[in-house]
């Protein structure tokens, strides 16, 4: 005997036991590991999802929407200072903005980048360009670091103006101020490098001269600086109150020049922005980020130099708020989805542990009789349980931590740790160490009806709360409300209890019939079902929850899809839509001739027309539309093209119709109209309130030309999915910066499907359904395997009595089929009812963005497929039972039975 063999320790005995009949133990280990995996991954995925959602929401509002923008004017006394010092001003501004940023709280400071600012004067018109009379406007712009942003492609950088406005002199009027223009602006203004703009004198009053020393291009056109300061590159059309319109453009001066032309710059605005990063943020910070952003918006950024204090504009706070809302609702919805399978996992785990514990019963009883204390025996069982789950849990958690990078949160450790400790706790608790149940066992047995009643009452309470308060309000107030999240589980458990309690009654009735007609297997099967069911509460629970959760997930998924589809249709307003500044007739005809396009209706919007009627104060939008093709897309009354009695026939929005009361005529922009019909205000035509549709042929009556801005398209449903690219091509929207957007319903749907929150919901629902089926299969197999010994005894006796083996199959069928049928029915009812409860409690519009509240959509084919899947699972576990019992030898099972 080896030295190791001489060590007679408990560990050695445990090891020996561990290696005996390991199948059930391995199963428990697999279930425990899978559960730990879920518990470790799901919170991290939700965390990651929150980050993705925050990033998505921030990205969706664009660079300008994100950034914290502020503007203010220069200090009043700036120009009057004895010698306006540009360096001093720039340093004050820079340090003030820098301080403002460093004073920001975290996580806002992490998201906010270094401030960037420019000084820009209002447009200064000059009447001469290169000696010719022509009006152009220059917006003098100063930026200390402008040379880093631009590349001078022609000429040179502007020099510092040698004169000063403070000392008015002859020379100061005749010396031009050096400026540079963007190539784009110079081309539009038809100005070349070296040209002088302006006159030195006009009516005896000295004027300013500007010399264009060079032309520039952005060093990096993709630099957010150009987006944040949109006036810097292009020209802008100025429409003065009097006189002709003219073009203006930004012109950089040397920063030091600001101090020289201090009076000109006295009117300048400081445009400052802090860029806000959409990436690199943590979803868990969304809430704090939102409150900090809205604080910045309401109270501004505390600047060290109060002269520059400015109010801040940003849309980041709304984006963060949307992300927070969606996260909360998603977490609530996922908790709602996960609670039930988690309950089943626990039930399956209990089943598995019971199988293992049952196989250890003799050992424990013997050790107990030999004087093993409860502590020793339950301790040994706990160690066995811990060996099955803890090492695997540690590995899983390490992998999860390494694989999914999120900021460590306590829940990410506590949840898996709790799950990992469940098997040892269950092993210790369920271990049988005495022949008869002790006081605890008896008490538990007596308390079972009370506990069942409590579960049913809790289910009713949580259902009431869920419908009353709704998940959304609850989650925003307190995070994930546990009582609401467990509503489906409680309902499923209640259904399970009803099945377990009601089943014997059903079977007792069935037994009478079975005894008379169907022979021995039916008789014994029905007796067994009512007195010693193979599938106990845990098994029934697993089946009911499994069926209901997968049906629930399926129905919710189809509902969700329908919601997204309708939201996409609503946002498009037709099968496809094209938006552009102006759509030319040739473009419209190109679109109309595309294969797959059935009709295309152009819409032109004339905004802010006053209705000459006291009851309608707000201006309305007139939509000029090609009503003939539009009538194939929207239900329009006929006769919209024919004027009757000098009144233009129009269709009005429903809210406008209400405001009109009983009247059917109105005057809009001086044109008399007659209302021939109305459409819901939110018809996806453009504006959502107060609009009037008139046929495009009446454009002249409104003193305008019909230039459609929007094309609504009705398409061949089969070719619609392929229409995006041809439409873009026809409109030239595939070229960069075309300003034209093309959106088809399939594209809009796909875009929505790509949103992180939507992906999260869909993944959660699919996983929930798949997991439930898997758990059901496990629970059924465990139940049937656990009942193997009892079945072996019964079949042993029956075979000794001369029953042929094939009739034993009928017995197994009796064990499974009635319970399966009843639980499938109960699960189906519950699974179809739950979505209605959830849809009334959870506002899925937060995810889908549709206008109408979602009504559960039931797809019978899909539901039947799921139910068929369950039938296969039941049949398969019956097959497993058959295989197991087929191996059993009646002589051995009978002898085992005797012991």
């Amino acid at each position, binding site marked *: 005997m080896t030295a190791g063999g001489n060590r*007679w320790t408990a560990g*050695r005995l445990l090891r020996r036991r561990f290696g005996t009949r390991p199948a059930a133990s391995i199963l428990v280990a697999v279930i425990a590991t899978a559960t730990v995996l879920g518990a470790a991954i799901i919170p991290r995925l939700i965390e990651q999802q929150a980050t993705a959602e925050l990033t998505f929401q921030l990205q969706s509002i664009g660079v300008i929407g994100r950034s914290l923008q502020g503007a203010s004017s220069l200090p009043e006394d700036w120009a009057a200072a004895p010698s306006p010092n540009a360096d001093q001003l720039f340093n004050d501004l820079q340090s003030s903005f820098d301080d403002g940023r460093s004073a920001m709280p975290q996580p806002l400071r992490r998201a906010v980048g270094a401030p960037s600012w420019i000084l820009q004067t209002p447009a200064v018109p000059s009447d001469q360009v290169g000696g010719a009379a022509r009006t152009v406007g220059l917006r003098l712009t100063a930026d200390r670091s402008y040379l880093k942003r631009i590349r001078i492609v022609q000429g040179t950088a502007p020099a510092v103006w040698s004169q000063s406005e403070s000392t008015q002199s002859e020379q100061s009027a005749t010396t031009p101020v050096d400026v540079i223009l963007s190539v784009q602006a110079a081309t539009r203004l038809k100005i070349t490098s070296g040209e002088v703009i302006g006159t030195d004198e006009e009516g005896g009053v000295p004027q300013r001269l500007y010399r264009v020393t060079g032309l520039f291009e952005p060093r990096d056109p993709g630099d957010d600086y150009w987006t944040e300061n949109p006036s810097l590159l292009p020209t802008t059309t100025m429409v003065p109150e009097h006189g002709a319109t003219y073009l203006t453009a930004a012109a950089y001066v040397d920063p030091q020049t600001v101090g020289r032309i201090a009076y000109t710059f006295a009117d300048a605005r400081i445009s400052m922005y802090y860029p806000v990063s959409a990436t690199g943020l943590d979803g868990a910070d969304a809430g704090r980020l939102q409150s900090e952003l809205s604080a910045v918006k309401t109270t501004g950024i505390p600047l060290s130099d109060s002269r520059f204090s400015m109010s801040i504009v940003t849309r980041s706070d709304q984006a963060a708020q949307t992300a927070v809302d969606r996260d909360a609702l998603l977490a609530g919805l996922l908790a709602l989805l996960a609670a039930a399978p988690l309950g089943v996992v626990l039930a399956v785990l209990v089943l598995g542990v019971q199988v293992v514990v049952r196989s250890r019963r*003799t050992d424990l009883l*013997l*050790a107990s*009789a*030999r004087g093993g204390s409860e502590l*020793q025996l339950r301790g040994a069982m706990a160690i066995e349980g811990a060996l099955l789950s803890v090492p695997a849990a540690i590995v899983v958690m390490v992998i999860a931590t390494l694989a999914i990078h999120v900021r460590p949160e306590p829940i990410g450790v506590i949840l898996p740790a709790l799950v990992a400790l469940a098997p040892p706790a269950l092993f210790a608790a369920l271990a049988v160490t005495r022949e008869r149940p002790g006081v605890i066992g008896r008490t538990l047995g007596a308390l079972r009806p009370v506990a069942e009643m409590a579960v049913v009452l809790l289910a009713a309470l949580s259902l009431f709360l869920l419908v009353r308060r709704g998940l959304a309000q609850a989650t925003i107030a307190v995070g994930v409300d546990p009582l609401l999240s467990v509503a489906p589980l409680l309902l499923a458990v209640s259904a399970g209890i009803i099945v377990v309690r009601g089943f014997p009654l059903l079977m007792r009735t069935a037994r009478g019939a079975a005894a008379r007609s169907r022979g021995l297997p039916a008789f014994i099967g029905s007796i067994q079902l009512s007195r010693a069911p193979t599938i106990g509460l845990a098994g029934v629970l697993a089946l009911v929850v499994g069926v209901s959760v997968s049906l629930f997930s399926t129905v919710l998924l189809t509902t969700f899809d329908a919601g997204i589809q309708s939201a996409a249709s609503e946002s498009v307003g037709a099968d496809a839509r094209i938006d552009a500044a102006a759509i030319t007739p040739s473009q419209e005809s190109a679109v109309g001739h595309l294969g797959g396009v059935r009709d295309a209706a152009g819409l032109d919007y004339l905004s802010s027309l006053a209705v000459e009627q006291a009851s309608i104060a707000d201006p309305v939008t007139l939509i000029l539309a090609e009503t003939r093709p539009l009538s194939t897309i929207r239900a329009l009354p006929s006769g919209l093209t024919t004027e009757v009695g000098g009144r233009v026939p129009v269709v009005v929005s429903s809210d406008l119709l209400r405001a009109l009361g009983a009247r059917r005529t109105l005057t809009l922009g001086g044109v008399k109209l007659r209302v021939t019909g109305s459409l819901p205000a939110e018809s996806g035509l453009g504006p959502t309130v107060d609009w009037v549709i008139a046929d495009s042929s009446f454009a002249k009556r409104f003193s305008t030309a019909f230039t459609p801005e929007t094309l609504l398209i009705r398409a061949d449903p089969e070719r619609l999915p392929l229409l995006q690219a041809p439409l873009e091509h026809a409109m030239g929207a595939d070229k960069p910066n075309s300003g034209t957007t093309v959106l088809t319903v399939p594209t809009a749907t796909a875009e929505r499907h790509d949103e992180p929150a939507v992906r999260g919901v869909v993944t959660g629902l699919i996983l929930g359904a798949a997991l439930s089926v898997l758990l059901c299969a496990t629970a059924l197999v465990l139940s049937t395997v656990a009942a193997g010994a009892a079945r072996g005894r019964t079949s042993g006796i029956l075979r000794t009595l001369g029953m042929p083996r094939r009739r034993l199959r009928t017995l197994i069928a009796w064990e499974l089929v009635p319970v399966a049928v009843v639980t499938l029915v109960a699960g189906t009812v519950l699974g179809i009812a739950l979505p209605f409860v959830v849809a009334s409690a959870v506002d899925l519009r937060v995810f889908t963005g549709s206008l109408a509240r979602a009504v559960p959509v039931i797809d019978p084919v899909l539901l039947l497929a799921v139910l068929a899947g369950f039938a296969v699972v039941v049949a398969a576990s019956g097959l497993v039972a058959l295989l197991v019992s087929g191996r059993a030898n009646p002589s051995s099972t009978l002898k085992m039975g005797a012991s």
Partner: protein
Amino acid sequence: MTATIECHELVRIFSSTGVEVQALQGLDLLVEKGELTAVVGASGSGKSTLLTILSGLDIPSAGRARVAGHDLLAMGHRERIEYRRRTVGFIWQQTVRNLLPYLTAAENISLALVVANWPRRERDARISELLALLGVSELRDRLPGQLSGGQQQRVAIAVALANRPDVLLADEPTGELDEANSEMVLEAFRAINEGLGTTVLIVTHDAGVSEHVRRTVQIRDGRTSTEVLRSTRTDSAGLEHEVAEEFAVLDRVGRLQLPLDYIAKLDMRDRVRLGLTEEHVTVSPVRTEKDDE
């Protein structure tokens, strides 16, 4: 001499779903230290109930039971565990209940030692000692399934003896064995009883067992009815004779059980007449008027 096992008016009632079964109905039993006693009785006579009570696995409903100074009715949780570990050892009829099938003979013994926190260094020596004592040293590393019934029971005895119990209890230890193996196992009990001085109580329905023990107690309907004492006497010719004397058991309040064949022969029913003479008590049937006719 004090009694190691002392049962007085022992009652055990099992009740389940309203039906009460009185398995022991005021049993009296005294076993002296170092005695080898057999308790025999028909199936359902209550002998197995007695054994589970004595082994500390069950608690009597009423009466008094003391084993090696432990009051079996008043024992607390800790004392009960200690009692099972060190005071009693037992062997059941079914070998599967005595030995764990996946442990070798030596490991099965070590289980008892581990449970009782036997000092680690001494475990190996103790295991070897026990295996040698029962003559199964060469079977040390075999699993129970690789042993014959007799070998299994001898290993089971070794396990039961592991923690040097005062009392060895055996429930039908030869029930599943053939004659030769039974003989061997019973001899092992006798050897332990004589060699170690351990008090041994064997419960059996096999009347043959009583031939191997000095004292046989018969249980009938949950009470001790008769006792057979065996002794060896040397007659005047110097020849040894085995003498077995059967006694009826008289309890403290004067109850005794009359043998069934006596009752049948005299057709005694319901009431009997007792008479006291100088040396003995007579029990006579009551003659009714009908009988007189």
